[in-house]
Structures are given as C-alpha cells and as structure tokens.
C-alpha cells in the first residue's frame, strides 16, 4: 500500500514537473521573424546580418530564400490568398500589384514609424528609394495614402561600356557617347570591326520597357508620357513614333548585338563580362555579377545617349528591393524594429559592401566601390514608374514591348507599331469606361 502510494506520488510529481516545464517554451516562437525573399545573391549577407541581430537582441530572423523570382512571386500570391504571409516579404510586380496587396490588407502602413522622432527613419533613406513605396492622397488605385515598404537597396538601370573595346575601336574610353547620333556612329564602327554592340536581356519585355520609357521621357517629357498613360495623348502621336523609331535606327546602324530579341539578361551579362560586347543596358546589380564573372573587366557606367536636349535623359531607378511588413503579423513591432536596425547606417554599409549594391541609406555612400558610385551618382536622373499614381494597361505595355521586338527584327515600322498600340489603348480605355 505504501509502495503504491509512493509510486502514485512520484507519478504525480513527475507529471507536475513535466507540465510546469511544458509551460516554459524552449524558444519563444513569437520572437522569430520570418522573411521571404528571392535574392539568391544576397542570402549570405542576410544570414550574417541575422546572426548579428540575434547576438544583439536575442531575436532570431529567418531569411527564407525562394528562387527564381517567378517562383517567389507565385508563392507570395498564393500565401496572400491563403492569409499566411510571413512577417516580412517583398512584392515583385507593378504598382497596381503592390496596391492590391495593400487593399487586401496584407501590408502594414509604416507612416507612423517613418514619421516618428522627427521623421528620423524616413529621412535616413534616399528620397527616391522611399518614394516607390509611397501612395499619395487620391491615387488611382484607391489605396489609403501612406508608406508601405522599406527600401533595402537601390537599383538604377542604365548603360555600361567596355573601356578596352573602346580603345580597340579607336575611341576615347573616358568619353562615352552623349548623343544618340554619336551612339549610332559608333554602331557603324562596331559593325565594320565585326564586333558586337549593345547587349541586353531584351527577350524579357520589362527591359525593353525601361529603355523605351527612358527615351519617351527624353523625347516628349514626363508630363506627356503620363498624359499618354491617362489616355489624353495617343500612341500614334509623332513623338511616340520617334520613340519607336530609335529602335529602327539602332537596328539599321549595327549597334545592336546579334539576336538581342532572343537574348536573356544572363547571356547579355556573360557577353559583356567576357569582353564580347561594347555596350550593355543593365541594372546596377551588374557590378556584382560582372565582378563574379570577370574581376578584371574594365568598364564604366554612362547615361543612355540622349536624342533630344529639350528634356533630360532619365534612367529607371529608385528602390531596388523593398521589404513589406505583414499587417496581420503577430510580431509587427519586433519586425519594424528589426527593419529599422537593418536599414541603419552600419548594417547598410555592410550589406552594400557584401552585395555590391547601392545602399538605400543615404549616409553610407562613402565606402562603396568606384564603379558603384558611378551608378549612385546617376540617381539624380532616376525615375521609377512606381512613383506615378497611374499604370499603363498590361495589354498596352505588352503591345509596346512586342511592337518594339517586331521593329528590331524588321517586321514592323515605327508608324505601324504606334498605330497598333494606339488601337489597343483605345480598346482598353473603352473597356474601362464601360
């Protein structure tokens, strides 16, 4: 009897202790911040920063990589539909996609955090980097005004040229062409020397898009481009014909590399890095890519050669990658604290150095490499469609990109493309108004 009593007591005690211990979590799961991203080249830097943050605060940050970007994009959309997004995520897509995520209640409005302490956090970024994450009052997406993302780095998409090949062509390697006519003349030299001219991933429509909009703004000014998107100016306008015409001029001059219409950007990067092409149209991420492919590559950044002096030559740029905070996250405050730490000067300097990307924090430009600072210097010419409160219809954008590809392969004239795009725009406008 005594034995069974003792055994019962022991059992109760064991259960009690285990129950008590069971109440104490081994790791506080609420102190784990999960980040989803697609940036393969930045994973090791993310992990290092995660390690540092955990050492400082005890909060673990899991950077989960999902690549390629198409797979990531699908995953984020599926997670949004299933209401199981992580604490931090990025949105790949256009401003309207970003707006849909916000309107569906997935993205936290960061305005109060950015504005706190006399806008301390908000003011630490390059204005253009933050601007792409801002929705202003009365925007066309019906989104509540606010700041909805945190830029982690900056990208500019512009042109680079190979200095060694410039010398071979008898050109001054310190004076890249500044006008479109000079550029076309170099094309003729390139053709005569049996070399490859401009390489870029123009099988990917968005890169053609960047190039075309740079020139559209240079030829007719930003306001007229915006009025075209608003439906107030037709794509059949002579200025748009001129924009499409530059692609015809490039094709005829020989400045374009063979097969540019079927070229993926990775191929373009390999060709440029291996001294096989004189020019490349690429993003500032190329600094890291070229360094990996050919550390001895002698090149410099340049603005696309301008067609007109009436309006400035612009480049696509602003926030390269941004992180959004899940509005339904249980760790909102911890997550915002982490992002503040992540975009602070010290971490941004490390991140920029490790990934060879332009930092989003404007206070840490001093330590970046020379070639990267050339890209950073051109930030003043950067413009990003996400700062506009209106987007073009996808069908119109697709017809522009396809039309340009058809000009590049000689199957359409600029006038034909302008007229076809105008018709599609009219159709889409009519559909919208109905």
């Amino acid at each position: 009897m005594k034995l069974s009593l003792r055994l019962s007591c022991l059992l109760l005690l064991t259960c009690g202790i285990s129950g008590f211990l069971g109440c104490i979590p081994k790791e506080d799961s609420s102190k784990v911040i999960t980040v989803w991203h697609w940036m393969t080249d930045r994973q090791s830097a993310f992990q290092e920063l995660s390690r540092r943050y955990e050492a400082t605060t005890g909060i673990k940050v899991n950077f989960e990589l999902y690549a390629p970007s198409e797979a990531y994009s699908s995953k984020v959309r599926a997670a949004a539909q299933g209401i199981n997004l992580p604490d931090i995520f990025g949105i790949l897509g256009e401003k309207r996609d970003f707006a849909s995520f916000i309107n569906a209640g997935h993205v936290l409005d960061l305005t109060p955090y950015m504005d706190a302490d006399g806008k301390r956090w908000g003011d630490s970024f390059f204005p253009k980097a933050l601007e792409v994450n801002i929705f202003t009052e009365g925007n066309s997406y019906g989104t509540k005004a606010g700041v909805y993302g945190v830029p982690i780095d900056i990208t500019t998409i512009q042109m680079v040229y190979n200095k060694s090949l410039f010398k071979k062509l008898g050109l001054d390697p310190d004076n890249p062409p500044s006008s479109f006519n000079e550029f076309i003349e170099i094309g003729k030299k390139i053709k005569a020397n049996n070399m490859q001219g401009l390489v870029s991933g123009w099988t990917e429509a968005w890169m053609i898009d960047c190039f075309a909009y740079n020139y559209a703004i240079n030829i007719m000014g930003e306001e007229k481009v915006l009025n075209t998107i608003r439906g107030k100016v037709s794509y059949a306008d002579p200025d748009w014909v001129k924009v499409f015409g530059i692609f015809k001029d490039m094709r005829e001059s020989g400045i374009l590399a063979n097969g540019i219409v079927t070229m993926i950007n990775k191929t373009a990067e390999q060709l440029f890095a291996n001294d096989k092409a004189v020019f490349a149209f690429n993003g500032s991420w190329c600094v890291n890519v070229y360094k990996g492919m050919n550390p001895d590559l002698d090149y410099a950044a340049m603005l696309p050669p301008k067609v007109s002096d009436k309006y400035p030559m612009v480049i696509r740029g602003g926030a390269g990658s941004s992180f959004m905070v899940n509005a339904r996250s249980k760790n909102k405050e911890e997550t915002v604290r982490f992002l503040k730490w992540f975009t602070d000067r010290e971490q941004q300097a490390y991140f920029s150095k490790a990934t060879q990307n332009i930092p989003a924090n404007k206070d840490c430009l001093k330590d970046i490499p020379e070639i990267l600072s050339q890209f950073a210097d051109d930030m003043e010419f950067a413009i990003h469609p996400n700062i506009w409160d209106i987007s073009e219809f996808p069908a119109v954008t697709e017809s522009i990109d396809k039309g340009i590809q058809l000009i590049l392969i000689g199957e359409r004239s600029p006038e034909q493309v302008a007229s076809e795009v105008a018709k599609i725009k009219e159709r889409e406008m009519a559909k919208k108004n109905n």
Partner: protein
Amino acid sequence: MKLKAVLENYVFVLPAVIIFSIFYVIPFIWIFHLGLYNWDGILPTKVFVGLNNFKEIVLQDPAWWQAMMNAGYITLIALTFQNALAFLLAWACDREIRMKNFYRVIFFIPPVLSEIVVGMVWRFIINDIDGANIINRMLTAAGFPNLVHNWLSDPKTALTTVALVHSWKGFGWGFLIFLAGLQTIPRELYEAARVDGANAWQSFKKITVPLMAPVMALVAILTILGSMQVFTLILGLVGGEFAGHTSVPVLRILTSMRVSSRFGYACAQGISFGLILVVISFIQYRFSHKAKQA
C-alpha cells in the same frame, strides 16, 4: 448477392475516384469558376463577368490564336517528323541488328533530360554569339556556307528550329512505345507471309501497319498532348515568346497570370486550352478507331 457484388466493385474503385476528384475534377471546376471573374489573384474581391473572359479569348485575343497556331505547327512537325523517326528507329531496333540494346538506351536519353537543359544545350549548339555555332560550322564544312543562318534569332526559322529540337527531345517516347508494339506482333505472321511470296514492303504494309494502328493512335494522342503543351523548351531556346513567333498557349497563360495580373482570364485560357486538347484527342481517337475497323 448481385447488389453486394456491385457495391464491392464500387468500393474497389472508390479510392481512385476520390483521388481523381480531388486532384482533377474539383480543380477543373474551381478553375472554371475563377474563369468567370475578373480577378488579379491578390484582392479578396472578384468581379463576376460571366462568360466574358471566354468571349474575349475567342473574339478579341489574336495573340492567343497565334499561340495556338504555333503550338499546332510544333505538333504537326512532331506528328510527322518525330513519329516517323521514332517508328523507323523502333522498326530497325526490332530486327536482329548488332548493339540494338545500346541503341535503345541511347534513343531514350533525350526524353529523360530536363526540357530546360535540352533547350539551353541546343541554344549553345545553335547560337553563334553566345554559343558554339556548331550547326553553322558543320554547314560550312559540308560545303553549304550559304545556308549559315541565325536559326533562333530569325523569325522565319525560330519556330521550326524549336519544333525540330522538340522532336529530337520527344522521339524517344514514341520509339519505346513503337518498339513494345512491334515486339507483340507474332513472328509467325512474317514467316507465313514470306512463304506466301510477300516481299518486305508487302509484309510491312499488310502486317506491321494494321497491327500497329492502335499503337500509332496512342503515340499520336500522346504526341498531340505533349507538343501542344510545350513551353519550358521554348524558354530555354529563345527565352520567351520572341515577338509572338514562338508564343504558345502555356506561355500566354503565364503572361496573363504573371505579367498582366489577370488571374481570372488566365483560368479561362487554361480551361479553353484544356477543352481544345480534349476535343483534338477525341477526334484523333475516333479517326484511329474507324481506321482500325476499316
């Protein structure tokens, strides 16, 4: 007793029916349902548009029909060139030739390779600027320098090049099925025909072809289904739609979903495409069935 037996049969097929319903029937119905809406795939609200998406596909989307034509062209090349090659090689390997097991293994290597890898390898073989330019070098060496060409960058040859690479990748499946079919034909039939004075061509025409008809129908249906849905190979070879010249239905669906954020429209395209494939397969089956009976 009879009822019990019937119920027993139903119980046996029930797991298969449940799995088929969960993974095929329900998604099909759900996708059709989504095809009735304007939806960007993110917002919780969807706008009901009835059959408008389907109407747009049929009446207002020339890019879709161009993609269908391109897929049809690839399928036609596969049905003729690829299957003829597969049949000839299977017929050769069915005979008593040396190293036939080696050939069987070799011919089956392309189908087991990843489509994207095949695309990129062939891009390397074909392209000049970012590849080894092997085809053009061979043409030059063989004395045909005037045939040297940018096969993948020229809109006139890009689709045919894609179709031929697709045929190279796919002929192994046909080869294997044809070989299995040929091996089921009793050898006695050929011996009897020979005794009756039939030559090789007559034996082929009167014995091989009729007995292989069901196998040919099967291979044709599989070829149609496989070729119409090709897209990864195209991404590897030409990187995308190449101004519509290498556009195919699956790439159009992906564009609607990812680039245009028209999830509802993409679902409608998926359903329309699925129905077209079912109809083509059914017609093909009926033709083969009639041919077999005749």
